[in-house]
């Protein structure tokens, strides 16, 4: 009598079929905890895996280990005081988070910022996108067993972080954007240093591609792994490079056209295949597009004031606003409800990783254990972003 395994999900594991008809050996599924302490879960994520040999039958993610009550803190602090907290939940995209929050508050208060300020904000956001994608690239290399790309990516990221440090005084959690402006203008050497970096960075991307992206082992690991169909994308509200890897050119920078993005020329890279390799290629291409955007920004960067006058006691009108922008991980939303007082009544982050991670059980079903880390890496999550 054939043994029924996989909880009736036999179709998900095609290679085990022939084995089952031939042997009647009783086998057991292996229940195993991946995380919370695991090097490849990118933080403190716990996956409860049911394994059939090396095949995944079911994966249940457990989150909340890094929950830090970011939304409750917002209700207890004033609008200005919350800006440094906005850095802290998606720490790889601190500038982007500040950008989203500051834009939401400005929209609520009807504040128009100066053109130079907008340009500098976009420069910062795009530099942060490069830094974030570099971390992604290096970590995916680590997940797939290649150590060296990680160090190379961090070498280049170091340049970006140094520029951030010179500008904002911090390397990771900047608190550079202010409601109605910025902390300070760019330092004197900023534009030259950035232009120098932008000159050699595309060559370095090519080097990474030679080292990792087009390596045959890496390609074989990624191609066909974690197939994300357009239907899944819709059902799970996937956004960012993940959805673009499935052939949907959905980019909030283009769709909403916030800030000065409509005045800049850049492509939305897409790939049709929807597997981990497609998502990887999209991210690599996005780094090149960010370089393009940054070059245009440096060219067009207007002179002038960076700050507009904002009352120290900021009291927006009663109302609410949902501000979306494109973080490196996808659609970042900031839902802000004001009751007319100095403090936000309610702040909710539409965190891209939170929505993107939910699709993981669908993607890893039937895959190998080794594929889990690849799929997780290719979705590019940040755990504090999920738990907030």
């Amino acid at each position, binding site marked *: 009598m054939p043994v029924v395994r996989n909880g009736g999900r036999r179709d998900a594991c095609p290679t085990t079929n022939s084995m089952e008809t031939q042997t009647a050996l009783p086998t057991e599924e292996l229940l195993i905890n991946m995380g919370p302490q695991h*090097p490849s879960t990118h933080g403190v994520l716990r996956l409860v895996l049911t394994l059939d040999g*090396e095949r995944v039958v079911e994966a249940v993610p457990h989150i909340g280990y890094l929950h830090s009550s970011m939304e409750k803190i917002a209700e207890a602090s004033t609008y200005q005081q919350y800006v440094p907290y906005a850095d802290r939940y998606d720490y790889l995209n601190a500038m982007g988070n500040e950008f989203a929050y500051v834009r939401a508050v400005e929209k609520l208060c009807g504040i128009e910022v100066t053109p130079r300020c907008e340009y500098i904000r976009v420069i910062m956001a795009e530099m942060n996108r490069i830094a974030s994608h570099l971390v992604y690239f290096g970590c995916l290399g680590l997940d797939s*067993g*290649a*150590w060296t790309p990680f160090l190379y990516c961090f070498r280049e990221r170091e340049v970006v972080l140094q520029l951030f440090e010179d500008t904002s005084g911090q390397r990771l959690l900047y608190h550079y954007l202010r409601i109605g402006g910025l902390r300070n203008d760019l330092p004197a050497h900023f534009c030259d240093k950035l232009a120098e970096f932008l000159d050699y960075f595309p060559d370095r991307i090519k080097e990474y591609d030679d*080292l990792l992206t087009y390596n045959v082992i890496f390609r074989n690991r990624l191609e066909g792994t974690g197939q994300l169909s357009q239907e899944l994308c819709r059902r799970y509200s996937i956004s960012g490079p993940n959805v673009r890897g499935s052939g949907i050119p959905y980019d909030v920078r283009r769709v909403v056209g916030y800030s000065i993005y409509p005045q800049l020329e850049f492509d939305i890279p897409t790939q049709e295949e929807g597997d981990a390799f497609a998502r990887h290629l999209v991210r690599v291409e996005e780094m090149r597009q960010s370089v393009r955007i940054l070059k245009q920004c440096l060219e067009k960067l207007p002179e002038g004031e960076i700050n507009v006058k904002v009352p120290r006691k900021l009291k927006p009108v009663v109302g609410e606003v949902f501000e979306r922008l494109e973080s490196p991980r996808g659609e970042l939303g900031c839902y802000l409800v004001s009751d007319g007082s100095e403090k936000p009544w309610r702040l909710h982050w539409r965190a891209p990783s939170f929505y993107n991670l939910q699709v993981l059980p669908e993607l890893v079903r039937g895959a190998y254990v080794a594929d889990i880390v690849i799929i997780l890496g290719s979705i590019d999550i940040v755990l504090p972003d999920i738990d907030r």
Partner: protein
Amino acid sequence: MNTSIIYAIGAAVRAWSEEFCQGHGIPTLFVDILAWGIGAILVLVLALLVALFIIWLERKVSGYIQVRLGPTRVGPVGLFQTAMDALKLLQKEDIIPQGADYWLHLCGPVLVFTSFMLGFAVIPWDVKATLAANVDLNVGLLYLLGVTSVGVLGIVMAGWGSNNKWSLLGAMRGAAQIISYEVPLLLALVCVVMVAGTLSLTRIVEAQGPGILAWYVFKPYLWIPFIMFIICGTAEVNRTPFDLPEAESELVGGFHTEYSGMKFALFFLTEFDHMWFVGLLGAAVFLGGWQSPIGAADPIPGFVWLMLKSFAFVLLLQWFRWTLPRLRVDQLMGLAWKFLIPVGFIALAIVCVAVLFV
């Protein structure tokens, strides 16, 4: 050069043993045991020292490849860093997890370490100098492969005995991988055996004659076996791109997850010594062992040449490790069974033809 320093040391040890036994009235049977015992201790010490050096080298090579510095603090250019690490590991508490099988847990690393140390018995260090001084085992290659494959058992014991599911997965992968890759490795070596006409490692080296062009690696019909040997050798020592049994990003260390202190150090030493061992084997089989590249009239001792050649292999494996990502388990099996083994048979056929007609 008919004799060598290593041979002279071996002969001196033997002479001393004979004298010692006669002087104390010990039966002559123990002369061999004493002489080989001293030789074995010398090789063990050498192997440990080389392992320390290779670990340092690995750190430095990886450091420079990754635009880092590697160890710099302990000793000149951090040379004593690994010795200090070994000391630290010696001091550490030996943790045995709850529910672990004590004896399996203990025997795993010991068996892994022992099995490949036995392989050093037949490595030809220099002219006429194996571990047993002038004794040459005529089935050396067979013995070597047989002894080293016992190490798989140690890995499985370690994985099963740890009572950890990740370790178990790592051990299963390790067993499958090492057994699979022994087949193409054997095919590659059989090609060499056919060309040399002997299973004795000493004779294989001797058959490669003096001078660089006589080495087997420069015979076109042995190129495919040579590349296969490199691939399978990397797989046998569980190094990237074949480090699936350990796979720190997937299995959190695999079969040695639960080990600490000296038992972990044994695994660690074994991995790096094993790498050197593969280098020695490769040097002996393909690069002419102790043979000098410029012919017989070379004043440099053959032992030095052997070391240089084996370290070239070690550096190559390190270069692989810090460049390539890891294969997935099904791709690993596919590479062995669907690609390397058919290619091995083709290579064997080519070598047959070459041996008959060249």
